């Protein structure tokens, strides 16, 4: 099983002060070497929190249990030293907002070099600088020699995100966790940054966990998709199946709320209601108050993940849902 990069099983996360309420419940997922997996869900569905927990980036008020094995090594409950040696070298993270993810007082060169030198003590300053320069070339930043000594405020949003990507790939990690990497960027820049990320991951054989709420991004990038709702995974499927044969009513709702080219005049559909918080989780299926198919069993019993063709989904009605009308034109 050496091609399994990340193997998360039964991940539970609760925050101090929220007695018994878990923000993330029983999340299990795997990412293989070099694979791009997307984790989709609304804000607050637990996608970022789960990934941060794996990297040990949650505040002390978080209680994390379950298992997350990275190349066979357990990360949950691992010592600070172990986590520190892995984060930034074997597992890297790309944050959502490049405007705030870079330290305003340190030059770009310093911030890239730092990522290299933390994990390679024997690399000299000059060597690190040379490598930082090459990284700027790798992420296609023009005039890298000049840019190296500039500060974050002298870069545009897209360029800053390229710098953040350069930092992420500095140590050729096995896994990159990208948390909404293009959400804060202009639409025109989004595609460029995603292309870059895809190209770099392919080049280096890096696994990519792409956290997003944008199904357009999913379609263009991911091989497999996990859909999260209210702290749990409700569906896991190959990317084609997600768009062709969504098994969970929530996934269907997400797909319907995408704008469609053929009927632009129509008002966008949305999923009625709002997602629950960890403190106000309904009984039974967490999605039932917003689900048009909900029955009595949905209100009482929490559904388990079951197989439906090549997908798995947590829905009591799985097989008996009406066929999904394909209305999506994947970009």
């Amino acid at each position, binding site marked *: 099983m050496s091609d399994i990069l990340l193997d998360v099983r039964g991940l539970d996360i609760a925050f101090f002060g929220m007695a018994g309420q878990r923000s993330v419940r029983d999340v299990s997922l795997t990412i293989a070497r070099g694979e791009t997996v997307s984790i989709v869900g609304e804000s607050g569905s637990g996608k970022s929190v789960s990934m941060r927990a794996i990297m040990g980036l949650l505040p002390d008020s978080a209680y994390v249990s379950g298992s997350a094995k990275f190349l066979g090594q357990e990360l949950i409950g691992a010592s600070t030293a172990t986590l520190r040696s892995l984060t*930034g070298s074997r597992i890297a993270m790309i944050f959502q907002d490049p405007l705030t*993810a870079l330290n305003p007082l340190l030059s770009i060169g310093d911030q890239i070099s730092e990522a290299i030198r933390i994990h390679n003590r024997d690399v000299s300053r000059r060597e690190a600088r040379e490598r930082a320069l090459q990284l700027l070339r790798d992420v296609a930043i023009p005039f890298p020699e000049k840019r190296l000594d500039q500060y974050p405020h002298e870069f545009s949003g897209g360029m800053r995100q390229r710098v953040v990507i350069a930092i992420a790939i500095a140590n050729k990690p096995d896994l990159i966790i990208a948390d909404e990497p293009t959400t804060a960027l202009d639409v025109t820049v989004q595609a460029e940054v995603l292309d870059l990320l895809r190209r770099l991951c392919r080049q280096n054989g890096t696994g990519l966990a792409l956290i997003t709420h944008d199904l357009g991004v999913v379609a263009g990038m991911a091989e497999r998709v996990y859909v999260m709702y209210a702290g749990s995974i409700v569906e896991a499927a190959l990317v084609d199946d997600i768009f062709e044969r969504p098994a969970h009513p929530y996934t269907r709702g997400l797909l319907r709320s995408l704008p469609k080219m053929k009927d632009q005049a129509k008002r966008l559909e949305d999923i009625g209601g709002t997602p629950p918080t960890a403190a106000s989780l309904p009984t039974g299926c967490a999605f039932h108050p917003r689900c048009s198919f909900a029955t009595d069993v949905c209100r009482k019993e929490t559904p388990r993940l079951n197989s439906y063709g090549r997908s798995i989904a947590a829905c009591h009605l799985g097989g008996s849902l009406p066929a999904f009308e394909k209305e999506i034109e994947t970009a």
Partner: protein
Amino acid sequence: MNAYRYVLRRLAGLPFLLLGVVTVAFLLSQLSPAEPLASILSERQLSNPEAVAAAKARWGLDRSPVEQYLYYVKNVFEGDLGISFRTKQPVIEDLAARLPATMELVLAALFLGVGSGIVLGVVAARFRDTVVDQLVRLIALFGSSLPVFWSGLAALSIFSVQLGLLPGPGRMNPRAAALDPITGFNTIDAILRGNMASFSDAVTHLILPAAVLGWATTGVISRLVRASMLDVLGQDYILMAKAKGSSGLRILFHHALRNALLPAITVIGYSFAYLLTGAVLTETIFSWPGVGSYAVESARALDYPAIMGVTMLGGAVFVLTNLATDLAYVLVDPRIKLQ
């Protein structure tokens, strides 16, 4: 923009500010009901009209206030602050002789106050809402609220009289051989002369007044740095630094503290000016022969030229401190450019 040109342009404003200070100080001296002749002449001479007329002519007191003002301003801009009624020395020489003592005290107080304030602020933020945090809060509270004339006496009583750890008031042991001044800073002069006995004498005399004077700064800076650190530690770039695999100490000092100190720079600059004024009380209690005690002695003697001189020195220090603060921002924060 060129830094030199910026500094020169800012310094060009200094004379105008000093003119304002002179004008206000002069008006206040005219408004005060005290008779300057009383401090120039003895009581017996005051009843002698000839002596009074001679003194008036000698000190220019027979002219109209406007004439006196214009004459004084002209002298000031020629670098002449007049002759002290009390010491009969040019005020500018008195100030020059006493300024090093004050600067040594104030800089030591600033160093102790800002240094301990930053360390305590970082510690309080790191151990937020624990006993350590509360302890720092207490230290800050006492520092900001205890008046120097009380904490100074208490410190002397405890550390000098009862415990005998540190010497009493004064700048040096009066029985020791005097240092030949180079910079006027006793600690530095002692090192330059290679005189270790004098150095330890100067340092031990300096510790108590500097600590007492700097304590208020410790309070202000530690509270400010704590709040600022908590804000910075919640920023994305700190999480990013953590995701890079930075150690806790590196995150705290390399990434967080520099950002957290930005708002502190203004307060540090302001503290310097504040300490100079606070030095009046501290110098009096610790018999420190600096500008502060000179100001007190001059005020008691109604020595107008000396008081005006001290006032102007204070104004100049404020302007220069503001300039230094602005320049410090440019050095520390790449986002700020000279305009």
